[in-house]
């Protein structure tokens, strides 16, 4: 067996392993979600990305919504653009705003960097449709909208952690304030 053939087998094992990770991500999302948009519509996508020399690549994904998972490339890229080197193992990032890495206000992308030897190696990511994110109309589909403010609450790329240069209490307060604008904060 040649070295190339060994690499093909190794690559395939690693690829399947990463896809298994994505399947486990999906199973966790579906089993823990309260929103029927997740549990019945399956309007979410899970994938694993990596960033090499500033270039973000999709390594693996589960059965996913194409507009979610491939657009998440831009979300992960935006996360690096906004936070730069201020990325730490305990961080969880949120990217939602359509003009800063998102697609539309209800699609939220959550990214959790995985570190090895103090380097970011993998970026597991989940993007899903949140059924209500504030805004003038329940459900956020405003057919008469002429501006983004008429659609939903806008959230800049955010980090929920206490790491690095962030405040000792900003992480604990991040999620409650993000849920506040929604009419259905529980979901």
């Amino acid at each position, binding site marked *: 067996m040649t070295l190339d053939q060994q690499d093909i087998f190794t690559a395939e094992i690693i690829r399947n392993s990463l896809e298994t990770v994505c399947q486990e991500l999906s199973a966790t999302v579906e089993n823990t979600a309260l929103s029927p948009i997740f549990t019945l519509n399956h309007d979410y996508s899970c994938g694993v990305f990596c960033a090499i020399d500033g270039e973000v690549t999709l390594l693996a994904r589960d059965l996913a919504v194409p507009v979610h998972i491939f657009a998440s490339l831009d979300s992960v890229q935006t996360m690096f653009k906004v936070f730069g080197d201020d990325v730490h193992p305990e961080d969880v990032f949120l990217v939602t705003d359509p003009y800063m890495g998102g697609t539309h206000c209800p699609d939220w992308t959550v990214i959790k960097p995985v570190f090895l030897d103090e380097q970011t190696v993998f970026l597991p990511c989940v993007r899903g449709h949140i059924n209500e994110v504030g*805004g003038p109309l*329940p459900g956020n589909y405003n057919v008469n909208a002429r501006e983004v*403010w008429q659609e939903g*609450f806008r*959230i*800049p790329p955010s*980090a929920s952690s206490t790491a690095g240069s*962030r*405040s000792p209490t900003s992480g604990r307060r991040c999620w409650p304030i993000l849920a506040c604008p929604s009419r259905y904060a529980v979901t």
Partner: protein
Amino acid sequence: MSSLDPAVDRLERVYPWSSEAAVALADLGGHVVAAAGTPQGPSLQAVVEHVRQTFADFGDGDVAISNDPAVGCADVTQLTMVRGHAAGTAIARVRIPDIGGFALGGLTPDGYDIWGEGARFPALRMAVSGRGLRQARELLILNSRTPRLVELALSSMETATAQLAVPDARSAAAAWDSQHRDAASALASLRPGIYTASAAIDAGDRWPAPVIRGRLELVGTLIRLDFSASDAEVDAPVNCSFALTADCCALVIASRLAGFDGTPAALSAVTLDSGVGLVTGASERAMTGLAVVYSAPTLRAVISALLDQAGATPAAAENPRPDLAPDSATRVDSAACCLRVGRATAIRDHEASLHAP
């Protein structure tokens, strides 16, 4: 002249479009002990209490903002900043032109609930121990069609609250007790009895005209203002928050009764029931955008009628506090000015973005 007037001047110099700017100081117990600018003492105190309840560790150098009518603001375009000091809390308030929602200005004729009026922040921490939180600032600015004006408003309030000196606890407590006693004895000069008055909010033909029903009880030591018989809140931006109701009560009583200075300490001498889910005590989902224009004058008229029956100084006669003249002109002018400036700024920014390289 209040010792805080220079702080109001500084606020208005940096952000000149909100003529209803207010500044206040609260002691460590959260009681507002001094205020200047447009009289809004009770609502400012409500915001302080809510911030302290939300952030149990709120302390020196911490800054939070709120624009939620459910916790102390009149409507979503009224931004209140609270800064912790070692001896208490400094508060500043201005009106901003826009915070998202259906339309510029926080007014939503076609809305269903308060989410249509704009983004709401019951309590958003902006700084911890003097260190600013970039994400919180971005969150606020991103949800406004006039981000530069919101940035300017934040800067003006940060400057005003940072430069205020909070009085020590002993003198603050003494001031509170003194104001409360003076208010109680001023109210005791009214004729005992139970009085009722009512008026319908006139907001034109477009919206229903809910009725505000007030009841003033002066029996023995009981002094009670009760609006719980008012109509239920409506699907129109004319619902008064509890805070706005309390502000109106303080304002009218102070303008009609010598010795009652309209501070929260004075108003604490009155048991006030605005009702919940009523047009005088809007629930969390109710729209409030035009309450300062249509409903507050009606509310003040009802309170004034009650005081007339109880024998207070006639409104047309000598006014014990001419600086507290109960009219909505200041707030209407402020809202209109903000809207004008906001619209001009939004149009200019939009045109600039069209021509950007």
